């Protein structure tokens, strides 16, 4: 396993590793069967086991536990053996992610309820089990589909509320997390950009723009790190059902989450609804403030939106690199490198709006 950057960057690039069991589904099934009584009262059988993500070394499995007249629908997340090369791997160990889920639930943020933080004797390696939440995660459907029109009316407010609750969590009750202020985040992505690409005028201009707008440091709070349309489980009627994908959580500026949610790439073509393609910024910030969050200035949100756009640019470079180095030769992986131009257009749009 190699990391693209030596300073502990959250996106880890892993090469192929050998799966310990030649039949991963059989391996997982046997261990879940043994855990069934723990996972559901009277749990006797595991049914409908299926892998939801393919290829990643971080596996997500859906399954049901059937027992005394009840069925419990669950999700297993575990770090398995290899598969094809992946760009995005968590830097957070799964037990820490499990602790964050628990803390978020305690704080009243909508998350999938933790059912088991797996122990060594469970035989699943690094793993946890959560309740399976029904809904949609496809960002484009959430932003565009008529079926989600009702959800879109409340989603912006719900996101503001959820973020306020996440950011209100006392960092001292959390497992140790890396603290990354604006300076650290900017330096980190500037460094990866310089290692991944030749010099690019728009990226250099964007770095200068962000440098002069670097916000003052504030006491670090829990930051989700990947709170965007695409990582939200959304019910067509009731809206936000669960905040997913906690693997990039860290301590930092709460406005980082608010800005990342506004990055144009996550608006799925609904560019005039700044927040994820489903709400405007006022709605998000009003709800955030009403739920106890400290309202950041628009400039602070825009700064983090630019950082997020720059970060997404860097990620497209890294994804192209996994293609160029032969780690993954898929057309999809190649083409994503061409999404760099969308990031540069979005960075210039932010710069233009501030002139």
């Amino acid at each position, binding site marked *: 396993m190699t990391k693209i950057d030596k300073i502990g960057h959250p996106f880890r690039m892993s090469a192929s590793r050998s799966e310990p069991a030649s039949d991963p589904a059989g391996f997982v099934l046997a261990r879940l069967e043994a855990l069934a009584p723990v996972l559901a009262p009277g749990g006797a059988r595991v049914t409908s086991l299926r892998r939801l993500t393919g290829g990643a070394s971080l596996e997500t499995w859906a399954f049901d536990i059937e027992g005394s007249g009840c069925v419990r629908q669950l999700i297993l997340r575990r770090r398995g053996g290899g598969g094809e090369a992946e760009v995005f791997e968590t830097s957070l160990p799964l037990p820490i992610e499990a602790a964050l889920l628990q803390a978020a639930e305690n704080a009243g943020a909508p998350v999938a309820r933790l059912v088991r933080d797996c122990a060594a004797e469970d035989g699943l390696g690094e793993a946890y089990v959560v309740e399976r939440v029904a809904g949609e995660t496809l960002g484009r459907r959430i932003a565009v589909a008529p079926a989600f029109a009702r959800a879109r009316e409340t989603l912006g407010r719900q996101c503001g509320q959820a973020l306020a609750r996440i950011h209100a969590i006392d960092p001292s009750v959390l497992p140790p997390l890396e603290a990354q202020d604006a300076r650290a985040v900017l330096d980190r992505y500037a460094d990866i950009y310089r290692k991944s*690409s*030749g*010099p*690019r*005028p*728009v*990226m*250099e*201009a964007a*770095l*200068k*723009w962000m440098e002069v707008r670097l916000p003052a440091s504030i006491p670090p709070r829990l930051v989700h790190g990947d709170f965007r349309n695409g990582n939200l489980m959304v019910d067509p009627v009731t809206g936000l059902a669960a905040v997913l994908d906690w693997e990039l959580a860290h301590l930092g500026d709460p406005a980082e989450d608010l800005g990342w949610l506004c990055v*144009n790439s996550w*608006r799925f*073509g*609904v*560019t005039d609804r700044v927040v994820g393609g489903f709400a405007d910024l006022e709605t998000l910030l009003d709800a955030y403030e009403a739920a106890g969050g400290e309202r950041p200035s628009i400039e602070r949100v825009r700064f983090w939106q630019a950082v997020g756009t720059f970060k997404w640019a860097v990620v497209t470079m890294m994804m*192209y690199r996994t*293609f*160029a180095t032969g780690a993954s*030769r*898929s*057309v*999809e992986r*190649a*083409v994503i*490198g*061409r*999404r*760099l*131009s*969308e990031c*540069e*257009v*979005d960075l*210039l*749009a932010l*710069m*233009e*709006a501030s*002139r």
Partner: protein
Amino acid sequence: MIDGPRKDELVEAAIAWLEDASAPVEGFHRKVAANALGIVRRELMQWPAAEAAAVARMGAILGRDGDYATLNVALAEALRDGTVSAEDPAVFDHLRRMALDTLAIDQPRYRHELSLEARP
């Protein structure tokens, strides 16, 4: 500015997918391969003129001659060391045109908030 993947890499990946007998002829991957070839087609048709215009603009900004790659790196370095600023309307307009010309090749349907022309 087009860096990677290059045209030949996009075509190569699409060919490899087409030749792979085990590849399921399934909607998503077929669309991705068609998208890759569409990028190549637009690049062949649009990039020569965009590149020539970019060379002329960068030559004027930097006050020197050179090919696209040389001038582009020089501009990036000048922006980094502060000898050129994106606050300069001519520089910003070049960056805008460059980014929009590249986007028109890579993702012509991408919706964004950047003005298509310099604002008066």
